[in-house]
């Protein structure tokens, strides 16, 4: 395997290696041809709802006769873990890769090309969502799901403050937070200083870019006044929170803070409500959702369309089996079930209806049209490596540094990472 990869690397186009690896498995494809094999799937914490996992596993094992081994991964340090895993002779076969990180991995040649899979099952994948899975005109992953943040709030606290309706504009929202602050002893909203994907949404709402091209090279655009405007909105939200200014939403898990019942709201993903319920089952009946309101009632706040793709490791010896798995997991049946159970946005428009009845997803849906991503360039992944300079910028502004100064202090770091040798 190792030698094969080396040879592949030698022949400039790394992709040819994939075909070589795949050919071994082709002969035994077919109904029962995979018996005795085990497919390893790396999925991120929170991505695979229990029932969905159970059903997909059953369907997969029935159809192929192979076993499915799911290894749930933590976000912390995942990039290095995937990189090293892809370099090994026995990598995980199918890997969930964040959409913003997919171009970087596609460029390394560590992911198998999935052009034929796209042809057979991907004709109706949502185009904007599929973009992150394509690099250099080739398909390197299959879009799995997207998610965007909503406001998750504690109905009991809001009722206690006498608020009857969920806000439709940003100004309304701030007013509601004011009211909660005055009338209850709860923290109006929990927003740590480094919830950077929420900030990215605000940037998208302001139409402010994170990078720009200068002299044929990508450089930081953080000093742009529009970025400063977006950060002002963030700071206003954060002023209602007692959360640490130098931590992100995962340390501590904001859902667990919320679960204690002393927080009016937080900005998070649908599955985080599940985390809260797991920590404190009693909170379930109090949880509500609404779309993050924007400047005007007609247009919700911009959101970061976070999401995940499923990729196949180029070094996997089970290329065919991996594709079988993708065909099952991404089938209308299970993609729909994922949307239904997980409250995530499925990868094709025809399945959008599946989220109906899922409150979180219903609240998320209106914002999708105005959603966006981080820059889809392979260089971007390096910027998000900890310590993420954008997060440092956010903390600096929240601690009172003027926008321009804070931006200037991290721009060198961003530019260094953007121009880092690949």
């Amino acid at each position, binding site marked *: 395997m*190792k030698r094969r*990869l*080396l040879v*592949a*690397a030698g022949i400039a186009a*790394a992709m040819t290696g994939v075909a070589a690896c795949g050919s071994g498995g082709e002969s035994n494809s077919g109904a029962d041809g995979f018996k005795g094999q085990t497919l390893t799937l790396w999925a991120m914490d929170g991505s695979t709802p229990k029932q969905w996992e159970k059903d997909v596993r059953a369907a997969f094992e029935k159809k192929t006769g192979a076993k499915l081994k799911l290894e749930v991964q933590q976000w912390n340090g995942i*990039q*290095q873990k995937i*990189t*090293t895993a*892809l*370099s090994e002779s026995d990598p995980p076969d199918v890997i969930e890769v964040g959409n913003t990180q997919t171009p*970087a*991995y596609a*460029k*390394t*040649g*560590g992911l198998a090309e999935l052009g034929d899979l796209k042809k057979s099952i991907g004709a109706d994948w949502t185009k904007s969502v599929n973009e992150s899975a394509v690099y250099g005109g080739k398909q390197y992953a299959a879009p799995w799901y997207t998610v965007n943040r909503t406001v998750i709030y504690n109905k009991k606290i809001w009722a206690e403050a006498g608020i009857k309706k969920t806000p439709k504009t940003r100004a309304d929202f701030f007013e509601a937070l004011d009211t909660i602050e005055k009338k209850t002893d709860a923290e109006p909203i929990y927003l740590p200083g480094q919830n950077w994907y929420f900030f990215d949404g605000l940037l998208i709402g302001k139409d402010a870019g994170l990078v720009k091209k200068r002299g044929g090279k990508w450089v930081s655009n953080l000093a742009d006044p529009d970025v400063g405007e977006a950060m002002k909105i963030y700071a206003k939200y954060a002023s209602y929170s*007692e959360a*640490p*200014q*130098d931590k992100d939403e995962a340390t501590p898990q904001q859902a667990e803070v919320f679960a204690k019942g002393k927080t009016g709201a937080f900005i998070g993903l649908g599955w985080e409500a599940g985390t809260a319920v797991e920590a404190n089952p009693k909170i379930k009946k109090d949880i509500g959702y609404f779309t993050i309101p924007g400047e005007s009632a007609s247009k919700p706040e911009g959101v970061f369309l976070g999401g995940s793709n499923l990729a196949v490791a180029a070094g996997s010896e089970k290329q065919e089996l991996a594709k079988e798995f993708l065909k099952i997991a991404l089938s209308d049946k299970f993609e729909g079930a994922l949307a239904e159970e997980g409250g995530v946005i499925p990868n094709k428009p025809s399945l959008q209806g599946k989220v109906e009845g899922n409150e979180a997803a219903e609240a998320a849906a209106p914002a999708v049209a105005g959603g966006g991503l981080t820059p889809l360039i392979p260089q971007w992944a*390096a910027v998000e*490596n*900890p*310590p993420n300079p954008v997060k*440092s910028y956010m*903390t*600096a502004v929240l601690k009172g540094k003027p926008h321009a100064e804070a931006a200037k202090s991290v721009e060198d770091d961003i530019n260094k*990472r953007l121009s*880092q*040798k*690949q």
Partner: protein
Amino acid sequence: MSVQTHEAPPPVRSTPRQPHPEDGPRGKPDPRGGGLPYLLLLPALAATAVLLGWPLVTNGLLSFQNLNMAQLIQHVTEWTGTDNYRDTLGSEDFWRVTLRSVLFTVVNVFLIMLCGTLTGLLLARLGSRMRLLLSVGLVLAWAMPVIAGTTVYQWLFAQRFGVVNWVLDAAGFHSMADYNWTGGQLSTFFVISLLIVWTSVPFVAVNLYAATTTIPRELYEAAALDGASARQSFMTVTLPFLKPFLLVTTFLEVIWIFKAFPHIFAINEGGPDRLTETLPVYAFVEGVGNQHYGMGAAISVLTILILLALMSYHLRLAMRQEEDEL
């Protein structure tokens, strides 16, 4: 656990000074038993060469390569000459981190040696029951595994519900009620240093106490006969006797503190804003964190060289002692 202080006068000295026919330790290399020492050393040397030497060489080779995600995944070797070194040595960050590492080491080693020595001398003064009590306390802190230790310190210094903030608030420092210890450079270093001193002092104290017990009584009696005060007998008897021990312990502590990694990384990952990164953390963040592995290797090679330079004086000293021994 104890320290090797080959400079110290051994408590028991063997009398025969003339070369022994069997082993000839003090004479010329013994022609007959010539192979034996090498045979005995073989496992240790081989293990060190294969498991430490080889990674060191690999690391050195990597430092001359452009090794990022793609190269690592594809097993491609891309030589870049001295680029990584030029970039590192030319960056202001590296020198700032180097200076910070040296300061960090000096301050902490000083604190550890001072507190450790004082605690050790205190142990020697205590009655047996108190001594046992304090020893147990020291051993508990000493034995605490680093990762458990960092976790506990994070909890002690937690912003919300952390007991340190509560105590400070109760003591009248109300601004500390919700203090974020990992929010600033100095306060983060304070927590890290406290943790490091807490785990390191017991080693120095317990061993120093053990060392004091080997000081022959007669030396003190002689000093007392000469009319020496307590202070004088400390200066003329205790201190000279402990000097070699203190030297070796300082040597070990410098190494351990300079390359301290889990303490710093676990408390705040070198943050806030990379302001508490020391050289090993910097090498890790640039190399593994940033997936710039060749660069990380170059920084780690420089880290090793800096440590060697810091230690060269002591190494030379130790080597000279080596000649006198046996």
